């Protein structure tokens, strides 16, 4: 190919480089060294001031947060593990609403994962030992996607089931200001 074509091809490649991890499919979910940080509570008061850098994200967060494959798996698990029974399609019911910006126990992915594993006293069941680590993090990634925290190009617009929540791709991003998660 003549030179102009090769130049434009290289340019385009660089521009789209960001896309490649979004669709990475690792169905096995390689175990990353650190599992769910036990006991990580909601953004809380650090006596004597926050220790050094602000809250360090778990290394797994990056692998799951904006990954289309994991969010899609999380969407299916959300329906099949009966989360939809209590939280409906994000509006809530027996359980609290998930598409609003109030996160009683923290809105970051590892906090949601902790909620799923530990359960919560007011009725959230504990799925420790009932779901694999990967499944729990996939569910947490999807729950974050419901309130628009996730990049738009990683989520599917709608499911093929009857539901009338706004398409995830159009869900307005609800701001989570670190440390100011709303408490009831």
């Amino acid at each position, binding site marked *: 190919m003549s030179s102009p074509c090769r130049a434009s091809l290289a340019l385009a490649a660089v521009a789209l480089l960001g896309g490649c991890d979004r669709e990475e*499919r690792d*169905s*096995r979910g390689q*175990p990353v060294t650190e599992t769910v940080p036990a006991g990580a509570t909601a953004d809380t008061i650090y006596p004597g001031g926050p220790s050094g850098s602000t809250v360090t994200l778990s290394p797994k967060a990056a692998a799951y947060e904006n990954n289309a494959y994991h969010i899609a798996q999380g969407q*299916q698990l959300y329906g099949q593990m009966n989360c939809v029974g209590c939280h409906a399609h994000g509006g809530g019911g027996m359980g609290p609403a998930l598409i609003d910006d109030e996160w009683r126990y923290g809105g970051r992915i590892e906090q949601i994962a902790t909620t799923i594993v530990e359960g919560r006293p007011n009725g959230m069941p504990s799925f420790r*030992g*009932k*779901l*694999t680590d990967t499944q729990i993090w996939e569910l947490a990634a999807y729950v974050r996607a419901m309130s628009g925290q996730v990049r738009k190009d990683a989520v599917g617009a709608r499911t*093929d089931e009857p539901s009338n929540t706004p398409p995830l791709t159009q869900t307005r991003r609800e701001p989570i200001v670190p440390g100011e998660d709303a408490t009831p």
Partner: protein
Amino acid sequence: MNTVQSVFGGQGAEGAQFLSLMTLFTVVTTIIYLLVLAYLALALWRRRRTEHTVESGDHAAEPPPQRTALIGWVALVNTGLIVLTVASFLTDRAMARTASSPALEIEIIGHQWWWDVKYTGADPSQSLETANELHLPVGVPAHITLKSADVIHSFWVPNLAGKQDLIPGRQTDISIKPTRTGLFRSQCAEFCGVQHTHMALDVTVENRADFLRWYRAGLQPAKAPTAPLAKAGYAYVMTRQCAMCHNITGTEAGSHFGPDLTHLASRRSIAAGTLPMNRGNLYGWVADPQANKPGSKMPTLGLEPNELHAVVAYLETLK
């Protein structure tokens, strides 16, 4: 030539009708093909007495014998096609007639990469649900209703009959009248995702008595395990990940996300035909399903060795 998964089997009424129609089509098309080849060969290598080319000056000439030959050829092609069309239409109607008096009602629901097979009937308490296996009594026309739970799949048992798609939101059906007993293999024929390859179904055509014996055994709930290792396996299955996705009638596990395991050990294959059923494969599958069927919805649980032995021991009691 395999007799397990081939259109030449003809063990079903529709399969036999297919074979006779296929031979008719093959004969007619081969004759037409040989005629074309003969005409071509003659046209290329015949000794030229007269030629109508630029060099001979009358290249525009179109002698009458060729024109009549053209009309003859069109007539031949038309009659050939009409014969084939009518034969095809009659065979189609004959196949549709087997659907007239179904004695067995079956419902198959396609999932992403396994088959949910339900024997429904007038009396709901006698309905049987199993997965990835289909038993048919020989000589009895069975009416199968096909539904899909997610994407489009296609139900195809080459030895018995043609295929029908399973389409979400629609209900298609197919009628099969097996005429000879045997063990057959069916495979999903419409691309349905990562593991479309491993979405097979073991089809067993047996005489009426064997079928009823299998059916009554299928209606029994899973027997509680007695051996200590199997009991430990039962405890793991009921309290850990397995019960979240699988249904074992007669126990606490009641989820339909994954295939029904009530009589897993009496099936011929594991994970929709991915592995033949034996102890080694049970170990291999439960230990690391993602190795055998990457992308499958069954996660790799990371079982401890003792848990693995217990679970496999319990699964083997699910006869």
